[in-house]
Structure formats: C-alpha cells, structure tokens
C-alpha cells in the first residue's frame, strides 16, 4: 500500500515544480487545457500502436500537449481572439474529439473517461517493473524519471528561465531565445501532465500544479524558495491526502486535491490577516 504514497510523492513533486513555473508564466489554465487534450494524443497514438502500455503513447500525448499550446498561440496571433477565449475554443474541441473517438471505437478497450478524470493511483502497485532486483510500481519509476528530467531542465536553463519568467522583454534584449525556451518549458509541462495523469488523473494534475505553488508564493520571497517550498507543500499535501483518503476509504486523488485547496485557504487566511494587521499598525 505504501507504494501508492511513493507514486504520489514523485508525481506531486514534479507537479509542484512545474506549477511554480506556470504560476509565474501565468499559464496554469493552459496546463489545464493540456491535461485534457493529451487524451486525444493518447487516442491517436493508440490507433497506430495498438498497445496501451507502449511508451509511444507518452510521446504522442506529450507532442499533442505541445500542439495544443501552439494552436492556442496561432489563434491569438491572428489578432482576432483573446488568449482566454482561444484556450476556451481549443481545449473543449480536442477533448470532445477524443471523447467521440473513444465512445465510437474504443469502448471495449481499457481507456475510459473515469480513468482520465480520477486516475488510478490505488491500482498503481499492480503494474510493476523490476529494477535492480526490487519490484517497483511502473508509474513510480516513470514518475521519478520525469522528476529528474524536470529538475535537470530547470538546473540547466535556470538563469535564462528565471529572467524570462520575471521580465520577458529584458530577457529578449539580452539575447535569450524566449520563444524556444517557452516551447521547451511547455514540452516538459506536457510530459509531466502525461505521465502524472495516468496515475493521478487530469484534475489532480491541475490541483497539484496550482495549489502548492500558490501556497508557496504566499510564504516566500525569492524564486528558488518558491520552487523548493512548492515541492515541499505538494509532498505534504499528498501525504496528508493519502492517509486521510485511506482512513475514510475514499478516492485518494480527489482527497489530495481537496486537502491541497484546504491547505492553500488556511495559509491564505493567515497571511491575509497578518497583512491587514500590519497595515492597521502602520496606519
């Protein structure tokens, strides 16, 4: 059973890390769109490969996440559609097509909508891979790999990433290729969403990208602190959600999302009260 928690912890760390980048880039709703449209990528890849456990599904889905981002940007570039409306146009479209294909052709395949929404973290220990003599859940190995990739990406591009997230125009003037960096960032977000959503579902992916990063931003002042605290909060939320979910015998991934929001609201209330008190004293 404890292996479920391992899976949750690595996936949550990845989401926390990427979430704080997305929060600074103001693209959390794009991530929401991605976490739904990758379903179409999976469906299309499945059509060609015919095997649900093939790594090509991850490649196809990740690619589709990037296609979603690019489509939104193309629509915005026409100058006729605002960013928020473009997201609202693209994401239901791709998601609806995926749902149609699944309900038409793949109803007998294990590829259903509930899985997409909820994930199946409870079942993750059932699918294991042997690694150095120990049997580990496949999603744990996958999650750790993606976490390392994400970490490596941030480490390598750290300076450019930080500058372009906080001052895009300045970053351009000093010669950082912001557009390319953006695309790479969204590729990693997409990869994180793809590998996470198999185990924890699309909704928890968004919850774990938004809530821990936002909780962290209330508590810290610098970018590195934001990254670290965001990961810590994500891990704390999943641990709490895991044990409370087990205790109450309900869906663990929904519980983690609810706990994450509760945690945010608590921190938000305390920091806001403190801020108001300081204002009062100053006045």
């Amino acid at each position, binding site marked *: 059973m404890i292996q479920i928690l391992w899976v949750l912890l690595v996936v949550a760390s990845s989401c926390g890390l990427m979430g704080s980048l997305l929060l600074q880039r103001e693209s959390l709703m794009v991530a929401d769109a991605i976490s739904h449209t990758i379903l179409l990528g999976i469906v299309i890849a499945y059509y060609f490969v015919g095997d649900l456990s093939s790594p090509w599904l991850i490649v196809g889905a990740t690619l589709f996440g990037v296609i979603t981002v690019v489509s939104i940007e193309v629509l915005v570039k026409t100058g006729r*559609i605002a960013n928020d409306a473009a997201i609202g146009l693209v994401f239901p479209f791709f998601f609806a097509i995926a749902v149609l294909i699944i309900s038409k052709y793949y109803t007998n395949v294990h590829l259903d909508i509930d899985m997409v929404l909820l994930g199946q973290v409870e079942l993750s220990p059932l699918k294991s891979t042997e690694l150095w003599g120990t049997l580990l859940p496949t999603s744990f190995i996958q999650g750790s790999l993606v976490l390392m990739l994400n970490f490596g990406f941030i480490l390598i591009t750290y300076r450019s990433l930080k500058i372009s997230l906080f001052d895009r125009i300045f970053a351009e003037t000093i010669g950082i290729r912001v557009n390319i960096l953006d695309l790479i960032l969204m590729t990693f977000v997409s990869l994180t969403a793809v590998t996470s959503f198999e185990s924890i579902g699309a909704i928890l992916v968004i919850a774990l990208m*938004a809530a821990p990063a936002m909780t962290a931003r209330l508590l810290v002042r610098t970018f590195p602190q934001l990254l670290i605290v965001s990961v810590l909060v994500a891990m704390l939320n999943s641990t709490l959600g895991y044990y409370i979910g087990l205790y109450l015998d309900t869906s663990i991934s929904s519980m983690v999302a609810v706990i994450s929001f509760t945690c945010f609201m608590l921190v938000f209330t305390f920091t806001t009260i403190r801020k108001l008190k300081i204002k009062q004293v100053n006045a």
Partner: protein
Amino acid sequence: MLSQFSFDYFFWIVALGTMVLGFTSGLIGTSLVLEKQSQLGDAIGHAVYPGVIIFFMLFQTRNTAILLVGAVVFGLIAFSIIQLIRFYSDFPYESILALVLSAFFSFGLLLYNVVQRNPQFQTVNFAGLNNYIMGQAAFLMWSDVRLIIIVSVVVVAVFMLLYPKIKLYLFDSIFAQTIGINSQWISHLLLLMCLLVIAVGLQAVGAKLISSMLVAPAIAAQQWTQSYGKMLGLAGVFGMIAAFIGTLLSTAISNIATGPMIVVVLTAIALLSLVFGTKGILADKLYTSHKEVSR
C-alpha cells in the same frame, strides 16, 4: 445512414432542448468573451458539480430542478471565493481560476465516490449523476427540456430588457458608471445568468464542455460583424444551428455522444468563420491588398 432512423418524438425533444440551450448560451456567452472572462465559464462549469451531488445527497432525488439549485448555489460560492482571493492577493486571475476549478471539481468527485459506496443512497438511482460530467443529451426528458426552456426565456427576457445598459457596460463601463448605471450590479447579473445557463446545460453537455457552448458562438459571431446587436443574434443562431446538427449527427451515427458532437460542430463553425468571415482573416487580406492597389 439517415434512412435508418426516423425523426421521432425523442429526437425532437432532445433537439429542442439542445437548440434552445445553444441559442441562450450563445447569447449570454458574448458577454463572457467581451469581458475577457471566457475561462470563468470553464471554472464555474466545473465548480457547480459538487452542488449537484450535495443536493442529491440532501434531498435524495434526481429531480433536475432541485439539483439545478444546488449547482447555482455552488457556482455562487466558487465565484465568491475567486473574488475573495483576487481581492486580497496579487495572484494572476487565471491561476485563481485553475485553483478553484480543480478543488471544487475534485470535491464533487469525492462526494460522488461517497454516494457510490454508501448503501444509504442505493435506494435512489444515482447512476445518472455521472452524466453531469460529460453530459447525456440523449437521455433528456420533457421535464428537463421544459426547464431549459423556462430558464432560457427568463434569461433572454432579462437580457433584452436590460440590453441598452448591458451594451454600455460591456463597451464603456466608465461612461456607463458616469450616467448612473451600476456596473457592479450589471456584471453580477450577467454572471448569474451565465450560471443559470451553465446549470441547466450540465445535463445535456456536461461540466467539461459547457464552456465551449458559451465561448465558441461568440468567437464565431465576432468574425462577421462589429455591431454588438448583430453579434448577439449571430451567436445565438450559431449556437442553435450547431446544436441541431450535432444532435442530428449523434442520432444518425451510432455510439456518438451528443454533447461532444455539438462542441465539435460549434468549433468547426468558429474556425470557418475565423477564416471566411466578413471580418475574418481572408477578408482582411483581400481588403488590405485592395487598399494597396488603390493607393
């Protein structure tokens, strides 16, 4: 394919429901798009889900009208929380939407899980509750369609009654304020109307896709006209046409869900309008090249 099926009573019930819904959501969605609040529709669409489940648990009924009240109540709670966080923090608006959307929807899924496992609820048929996520237009009954029509008539009537004020508010809120129109009040009223349409549309299109019914017709309409009055009419008509074609296709082809089909047709209309509309990309290109020649 069409010959195999008849335009029977059930088809017309479903078609009537989705078409009325398509018209109203197209109409009211224009305000969301013009206010740059498209994502709010998506967030509220997800956030109303726990309201449906809680009211099911409280009243142990699947009466659509009662569940609709639950949806509206939770939509209002979600909106208040969004405004609260927005007022007391400097988070980007969209991040607050993502936060509230995921939290509320997860809460709904959690409650649904409770309903599934608790024998107390087994006496009532709870299976239909799942339909509020992806929508099940094919199972719309006359009572549901009646509810859609009642809500639509009220929403459209109020909208038309206040049309001059709404128009002023959308295009020049500061001027509207100076001549004594309460912008705050209009904005809240518009939101309430959106919320009602979302709640009533959940059963047909589902929480996941309802935002498209609001946003896509408005985008399509914008590509044909610059007058708000015409945009309203066009958005309503586009919504209605897409709903009819979508329902028709999903009835004619087996194993095709109505809600997603309507969304696909609607987006196709929006994309085609974007290219071929009189204010679209092609027209713009032709117009500019013509101007250059005459110069």
